[in-house]
């Protein structure tokens, strides 16, 4: 029996029953604990305190629901929707245990949505997606940011690489700089790339995180149809959600085929190694790097499985961790310090799982925790590789009046060209 896509939470019954309530899912891997502070890896348990909000708590609840029936109460839905779906609990659990955590929690969320128990704020987002093909309100045209840049239209001309811009970067004027920086980098390196412009539509990744599998699938199929029609072999994106969608979720749902998917940080690293891009300008700035969940631990390639039980678990080992760091280290003058919670056990920015929309206070709380950690390194700036992380951090910084700056990796790379 292959893993049945859409078979749902039932296929993870054995995994849910295996949870022994050890509480490791609350913390970073124990040998990485370096002090009293920054020990927690799960924002949900750290904020809401009841064990139910931890990865293990969710597994216990799922196991009970599969046994005794799904009884949707306000409290249950509060537990379900106050989770960034960041995958940290699974990494910590899977240090020791052979059991699937993240997918089980994902499927529980999807079941809630399928059973009609949605969050009203997330319903609004999905309504927008269905109408506009975007996770954020579409202001203007999707490719407006590219005006004057003379970029190829990948739907009309043959290109080697499709640069998938993403919803937030396309429509939020504050994020246009990321798209422009990415385009500048690719042009400078002589990459034959194009954008889909108005034809670009949401990757569907955030819809999946929120629990709306059908909407995700519709978006995935639209994207793959565009890619196939245009003869695209490689997609590059500067959004971690987009990266996870194309690289992992599309593969999980057997839609990806042989498409090569790269995050811009991986691509820049590749271009530097091939000698096609040189970052020569000195930027005297001390930074710390924030690993986006969906580029790091959740960006790990999907492993298809057959039979009753998963044989090879995805444990966050093979996410994209080093390329962004290598890019930063290649910029003259950059001084990189690491936070305590990094790589496969990084603390989430707060925006994932629909929390940005359903509970902005919790998203902000999570981001402030990260800002505190970044500040503790002494760095002047926190660098990430996802516009959602950047947006969430900026909001939090503005709230507390911190002097910490926020950059995306493409901004620094473009400045250093």
């Amino acid at each position, binding site marked *: 029996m292959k893993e049945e896509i859409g078979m749902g939470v039932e296929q993870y019954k054995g995994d849910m029953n295996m949870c022994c309530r050890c509480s490791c899912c*609350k913390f970073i891997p124990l040998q990485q604990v370096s002090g009293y502070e920054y020990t927690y890896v799960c924002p949900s348990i750290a904020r809401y305190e*009841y064990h139910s909000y931890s990865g293990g708590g969710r597994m216990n*609840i799922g*196991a009970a629901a599969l046994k005794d029936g799904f009884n949707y109460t306000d409290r249950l839905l509060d537990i379900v929707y106050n989770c960034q779906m960041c995958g940290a609990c699974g*990494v910590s659990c899977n240090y020791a245990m052979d*059991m699937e955590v993240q997918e089980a929690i994902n499927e529980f969320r999807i079941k809630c949505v399928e059973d009609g128990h949605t969050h009203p704020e997330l319903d609004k987002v999905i309504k927008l997606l269905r109408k506009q093909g975007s996770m954020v309100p579409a202001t203007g045209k999707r490719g407006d940011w590219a005006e004057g840049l003379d970029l190829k239209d990948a739907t009309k001309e043959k290109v080697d690489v499709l640069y998938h811009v993403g919803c937030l970067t396309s429509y939020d004027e504050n994020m246009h700089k990321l798209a422009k920086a990415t385009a500048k980098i690719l042009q400078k390196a002589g990459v034959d790339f194009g954008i889909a412009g108005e034809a670009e539509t949401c990757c569907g990744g955030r819809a999946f995180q929120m629990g709306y599998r059908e909407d995700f699938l519709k978006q995935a199929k639209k994207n793959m149809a565009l890619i196939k029609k245009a003869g695209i072999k490689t997609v590059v994106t500067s959004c971690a959600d987009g990266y996870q969608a194309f690289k992992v979720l599309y593969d999980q749902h057997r839609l990806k085929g042989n498409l090569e998917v790269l995050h811009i940080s991986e691509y820049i690293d590749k271009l530097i190694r091939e000698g096609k891009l040189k970052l020569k300008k000195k930027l005297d700035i001390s930074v710390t790097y924030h690993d986006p969940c969906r580029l790091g631990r959740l960006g790990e390639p999907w492993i298809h499985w057959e039979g009753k039980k998963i044989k090879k678990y995805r444990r966050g080992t093979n996410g994209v961790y080093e390329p962004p760091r290598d890019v930063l280290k290649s910029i003259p003058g950059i001084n990189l310090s690491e936070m305590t919670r990094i790589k496969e056990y990084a603390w989430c920015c707060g925006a994932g799982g629909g929390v940005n929309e359903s509970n902005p206070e919790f998203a902000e709380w999570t981001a402030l925790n990260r800002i505190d950690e970044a500040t503790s390194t002494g760095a002047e700036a926190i660098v990430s590789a996802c516009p959602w992380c950047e947006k969430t951090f900026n909001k939090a910084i503005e709230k507390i009046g911190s002097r910490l700056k926020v950059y995306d990796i493409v901004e620094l790379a473009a400045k250093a060209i």
Partner: protein
Amino acid sequence: MALERDVYREFEDVVGAEYICDDPAIMPSYHGVEHAAVVLPANTAQVQAIIKLCNKHKLPFSAVSTAWTGMFSPGTIYIEMRRMNRIIEINEKNMYAVVEPYVISAQLQAELFKRGLHLNVKGAGTQCSALLRGHGHLDQSTSGDDRNHLAIEWVTPEGEIVRSGALGSVNEWFCGDGPGPSLRAILTSAVPPGVTPGVFTKAAVKLYHYPGPAKFPIQGKSPKYTLSEIPPNMMARYYSFPSVEKMWEAELKLGENEICFELMGFNVSMVAANITTCNEDEERIFKQMDKEKLGPGFFVIIAGNSAADFAFKKKALEQIISESGGQSLKSVEDPETEGILLCQCIRISASIRETFRPGGMFKSIPIMGQRDLTIKWAVGAGEAKLPLIEKGYIVDDSGGFFGWGVEQGHVGKTEIFCKFDPQDPEAEKAVEGWHKEQSERAFKERYFALLMGPVADDVAPAMSNFNVWWDKITQAFDPNGIAPQGGPLV
């Protein structure tokens, strides 16, 4: 078993609306028991108020830290000590740390390492409470059980606050036995903050000198973390012996000579579990190590305060091992494996890998007692596992058992478990049968007596009817009978 609304409101007035919940939705994550309510106090005053309300309304209560295991009855006020998570003090000069119940050992250990200190870490692991009394792999160098508790702040089952030892007389944490009330046997008969009557809200734990690095040089990604180098003046090895008697002889000599930083009587199945990242690899490595070993054995870490100290300990270790006919397991001499075990066995302690990963469940008989006697019993219990292994009911570990001595090693922990799939009813039944049979044998053949389970009723008369006295004591402290009774708690 919902509380009446006016009673609920009384508890709510103590902790605030956000920190009490009786919604059925959360109960599956609280051991699947229908508690009266889950309550999260922030400080000792709130704990006291909660206990007084429990007395007022005759509501049973249980207080827990991370609560990995426990026994809970429906209708209990479940006091989760999560919000009491502060390190109150680290007193380097007098070598104690004062912690609240939800400081986990990993946090305290990491802070102590920076100061050249460490603590006894309980075998359950560093994700558990630093306040926890119990045994751990470091017992030879850091003692075990209640010996690491100094003064304790205790809320009695009636809701009085009692400060034991020096805390009760001179407001100092350095001694649990005086000047001031020493309540050691009462307070630490089991495991804090619950099961012992009442609730521990703070405790001072003894600290020890630590010769190791402030941070281990970890590299790699989960689940495979290795060390880029073995820290100076540290070494980890596994030694096996031609017989249990020879193993015991070496273990005792090492204890009496105070050589080891850590001595853990792992069997090779547990070594294999700790160094591998999935069940398939564990099975393969175990088979390899099982062929390599001479017989039963133990894992050792030595740590020197200087190169000369390390050289002496290494020489003494090797001499003792040689005199007992022991042999070092070559697999563990490999620096990568050595580094994994060094870090794992200090920073994590018992690993979930060696207990829950293989089968999803394990059933154990642990006993604290005279090591040579309990080892003899464990040999028989291990042989009794072999038919279950053959039938595929339990994970193959060659019938292994484990344990370690405390301080000089005469007394210590011996434990044996069966790892099985809890979804397999036949396996569960077979394991239950083994457990009952071996517990009864332990008592009949006068090795030791378990205080719970099938022989409990026969044990008391053989032990001066201790239960009669214990009942009198608990009744005196708990006239309303609301404090939890018995059961291990982590």
